[in-house]
């Protein structure tokens, strides 16, 4: 007990009010995180549906290419992908700013995971439903948009939620490429104030609340997409 209290004793106060002047700065960081994650969410969904469509397509070439993409990006640490885009590509003359790099890298990585989830959602669709659609003369793109996507989304929305939460957590790594999002600005405040304990305690709470809100939203969306299986409101 003694050494612990001694250690604690060396810093007697836990005072978050000390952070008050830095709140606008942290908020700016949080906003950047929200923007990057929001865009990356759209990006990974778009890539996810596209790649899932390719992987379930009848063309062996397309499905093979899609498979390679998924396998590749799922098996490389995110930070390595990020460094490659941000520090590697300029060597061959491709410059992308930190924010765009972050969004693109998150979308590509998130897209690989999303496509897997969406693909199993697509494979779970009763083939009879797709046959009914085909026989009624609907074109393939219409079937994909009006039947395949919404039905796959019904079953994949929960696992997609986990992918998005992961995306938010992973976005903290963007701080390593000079992007002062939430974690990046917290780092700056911590070193400015010499109060890492308070700063990172707040950061913990903020990330936890953010992901909790997202999981609430996912649950609500899941209920909405599966509203037909809920008791009817008379």
């Amino acid at each position, binding site marked *: 007990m003694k050494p612990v209290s001694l250690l604690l004793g060396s810093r007697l106060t836990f005072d978050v009010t000390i952070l008050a002047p830095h709140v606008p700065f942290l908020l700016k960081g949080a906003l950047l995180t929200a923007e990057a994650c929001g865009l990356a969410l759209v990006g990974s969904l778009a890539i996810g549906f596209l790649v899932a469509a390719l992987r379930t397509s009848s063309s062996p070439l397309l499905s093979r290419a899609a498979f390679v993409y998924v396998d590749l990006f799922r098996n490389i640490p995110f930070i390595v992908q990020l460094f490659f885009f941000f520090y590697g590509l300029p060597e061959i003359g491709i410059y992308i700013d930190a924010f765009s790099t972050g969004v693109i890298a998150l979308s590509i990585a998130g897209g690989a995971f999303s496509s897997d989830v969406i693909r199993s959602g697509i494979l779970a669709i009763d083939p*009879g439903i797709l046959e009914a659609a085909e026989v009624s003369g609907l074109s393939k793109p219409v079937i994909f948009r009006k039947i395949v996507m919404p039905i796959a989304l019904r079953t994949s929305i929960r696992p997609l939620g986990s992918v998005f939460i992961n995306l938010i957590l992973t976005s903290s790594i963007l701080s390593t490429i000079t992007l002062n999002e939430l974690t990046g600005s917290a780092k700056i405040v911590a070193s400015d104030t010499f109060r890492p304990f308070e700063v990172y305690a707040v950061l913990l709470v903020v990330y936890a609340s953010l992901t909790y809100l997202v999981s609430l939203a996912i649950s609500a969306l899941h209920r909405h997409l599966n509203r037909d299986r809920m008791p009817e409101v008379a």
Partner: protein
Amino acid sequence: MIRARGVRKSFGSAAVLDGIDLDVHGSEVVSILGSSGSGKSTLIRCMNGLEKLDAGSITIDDFDVSLPKDLAEARKRSATVFQLFNLYPHMTALQNVTLAPIQVLKRSRAEAEATARSLLDSVGLGARADAYPAQLSGGQRQRVGICRALAMNPRYLLLDEITSALDPEMTAEVLSILAQLAKTGTTMVFVTHEIEFARTISSRIVFLDKGQLVVDLPTEEFFAAEGGMARPRISQFLSKMRKD
């Protein structure tokens, strides 16, 4: 008319359809009988283009279902009702019925919905237009399935054991709709195990056995003692069906 000539289809080494010739003219109701595994569903699936023929041809109003360009037209002229309904689970009854008219026939939403509502009304589902399939009974789902097919204003209705997933009461409600359709001159190809019902609505009965069309007779002849019943295979089948 629907015209099948020398239709062959195998899965692996098993010949499921072994040279089928069949004509279905406008306003006819042709029932296809045959024991399980005789190839009835496969024949329907060849007609609506879900299976590719190995040999022979099927034309619907002279549109060849084996030609991609013709198939689209053939599918506009025919509509299928499925044994397991195959409704779109994420859409209401109304949306199930209006989707293809809007997307394929390019009807306006208002027009498609008006048609859909009157169809749903006519099968006693007017009040359930906004219900989802999961909220409907089997019989109600199949009635939506029929409306979805009819909304395309098809010349030919292909029906594959559409009551075999239903209990007797629901079967009766679905069959009564078919009886009405038959009266209005809708052309139907009707795969069924409901022998007695087939007898009342069919103009012709066709009997499939191991992928071959062994009998094709006007209904009365089929059931006459000296007609189809004179064949042991058919009388066996019918007495077995009636027992079940």
